[in-house]
């Protein structure tokens, strides 16, 4: 598994995602109060907090798609910035719905995502495997506009989970999923932890939180 950067603490070679005193303000409006978070490879940090508390903003900052007003974010000591190919390679994020190609089926989307990361042979099998793991393999030849809202969410999760990464940032991945699918998702995320991934998940579901969280951070509204 690829590792970003070179700074490791002691003999622990696990990933190290750190946000130090990050805040976000737009003019006088505070979107995120100063907060510290740290998550290592093999761990899952769950963000909780009421609507508007800044969970999504924090996830955007951790993904490097938003610049914090103050504070720093690093992955293995390297500043997180979406323009940096290392950031893009290491961090996969589902923050809002990604735009889908209206002329590609679900299967095609996963093959496209897989192939563009240069993973070599086996894109077909990996695509079907991902659809199967979320129990949507019977929808493989559907176009995105032919899905229900819950199926759309599973499709978006499949795309994000299908691309190589070492850090997963998920914004309310449980939304619109039924109880059984939430259980499936929980198991997939636990498997990712076991594989050494670092996870940061904004979540409102107590059961899913209990299943995946190593630590819980309550994001306090501004």
């Amino acid at each position, binding site marked *: 598994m690829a590792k970003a950067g070179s700074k490791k603490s002691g003999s622990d070679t696990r990933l190290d995602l750190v946000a130090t005193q990050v805040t976000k303000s737009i003019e006088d409006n505070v979107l995120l109060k100063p907060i510290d978070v740290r998550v290592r490879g093999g761990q899952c940090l769950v963000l909780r907090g009421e609507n508007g508390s800044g969970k999504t903003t924090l996830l955007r900052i951790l993904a490097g798609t938003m610049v914090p007003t103050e504070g720093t974010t690093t992955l293995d000591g390297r500043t997180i910035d979406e323009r940096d190919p290392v950031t893009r390679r290491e961090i996969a994020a589902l*923050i809002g719905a990604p735009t889908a190609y209206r002329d590609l089926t679900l299967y*095609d989307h996963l*093959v496209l995502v897989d192939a563009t990361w240069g993973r070599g042979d086996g894109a077909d099998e990996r695509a079907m495997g991902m659809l199967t793991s979320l129990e949507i393999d019977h929808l493989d030849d559907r176009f995105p506009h032919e899905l229900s809202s819950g199926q759309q969410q599973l499709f978006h999760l499949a795309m994000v989970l299908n691309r190589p990464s070492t850090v997963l940032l998920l914004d309310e991945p449980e939304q619109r999923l039924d109880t059984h699918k939430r259980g499936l998702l929980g198991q997939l995320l636990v498997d990712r932890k076991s594989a050494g991934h670092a996870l940061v998940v904004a979540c409102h579901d107590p059961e899913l939180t209990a299943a995946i969280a190593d630590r819980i951070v309550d994001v306090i509204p501004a």
Partner: protein
Amino acid sequence: MSTERLEASTTPDSELLDDARRIITGEDHQGEGNALYVVYVAVIAAGAYGVPASQQFFRFLDPAWMAQHLTGLRGLAAGVVVAAALLGLAFRAGSFRGPVVPDLPYLDHVASSPLDRAVVLRRWWRLGLLGAVFGGLLIGLVIGAGLAIAAVTSAVVIIPAVVIGSVLGLLVAGAWLQGQVRTWPDGDRGWGVFLRPSRSLRALHLTALRTQSARAVTIGGAVLAGDLRAARLDIAAPTTRGRKLRLRARGPVGTVVARDVLGLRRSPGALVTGMVLSGLAAYGLVHSASRGTPSVIALVCLLVGYFGVGAWSEGLRLQGDNTGTPPLIGLPARTEALAHLVLPGLLYAAVALVVGGVTLALGGGSGLGIGWAVVMVWLLLGSQLMAAFRGLPPMAVFTPGRGIGTTALWYAVPMLVPAIVGTASTALLTSSLASNAPLVLILGSYAAFLYGLRKVRTLNEAHRD
């Protein structure tokens, strides 16, 4: 509690409607003033631009060819085909947006009342009818005047051209409304209501009217916000073809190109549209390299070519729609954008070569003309980059009085670049300064490409703040 039946009002519906409109708009004749202004601008534009362009076009076309094809039975058949195509288009347009599209509050509060729907909705129908008939009249006038000034026929042709244009406009308006009436599955929707506006208007269902009105709001908002994806999704029929076809991994860049190929296989309409428009553009560009060909031909062809190549560039536009979201595709945005240009570039070059070769074989154009049409591909691809990565419109589009003009200009810029650069370089090619033409074309294409790639980068970074 007692129930009380309302008695029908004795006040005519038109008076009740005038009262309602006075309350809504606060004025009596605002709409009529706007319509008159549009008529005024259309007349000025037809005289200043339409007639000169028309006569240049007819000068370019071979008079012998026109005499052979546009007179007698052949001419009549061609006219019937064109008229049928226009009526078909108008009918189809009516199913997306008919002539009668009041705003939603008017529909909810006035059209839903017991007032006669023929009275409530006739204002919009009359505006649409006026626009279609007057538009047909102007087009007839422009074509007739162009034919006369280019000395193809005598000036008498203007009279039948104007009459035919007006009648065709009337029929187009009728087909447009008929297309709207047919959007509701039952009721008085047969061809018996064609050009019977009162019956047609009464056949319009409130739900169908609301759907079209909401769509107009969505598309209008999307255009103003620079979000053409929302507009495309609202207009375009969803893809359902070729679901059993599968995308195969062919390496990072190859898979992106394969994606675009698969997209076109599932959208044969876009493939054919691109072929036809690019073919027409290439045909004109092959001729435009010959001395004596009016510059307007290159201008028109480059505009047509822009739309032709655009029909094949859905993959690039979808990438543009995705800018700013966390990356799913493993390629740098610049590489992905360039990969999306491969298919439209190859298709255009192939079409230009085939059309040029056929033209040459039939005794028209020249080898230089074929090469000239082919190298325009860089300019057309650069303009597609600029269009796909337009970003957000300037704030001036929200300025009262300047909004429409600024919006139109902002959308037109990617289209104007190839039109201006291509026309200028073609004009040089057919002048005594021919040696400078390639330089102008190369510099212009390079600038368009460079600007497009810069927009790819800046838009990907713009969301960070």
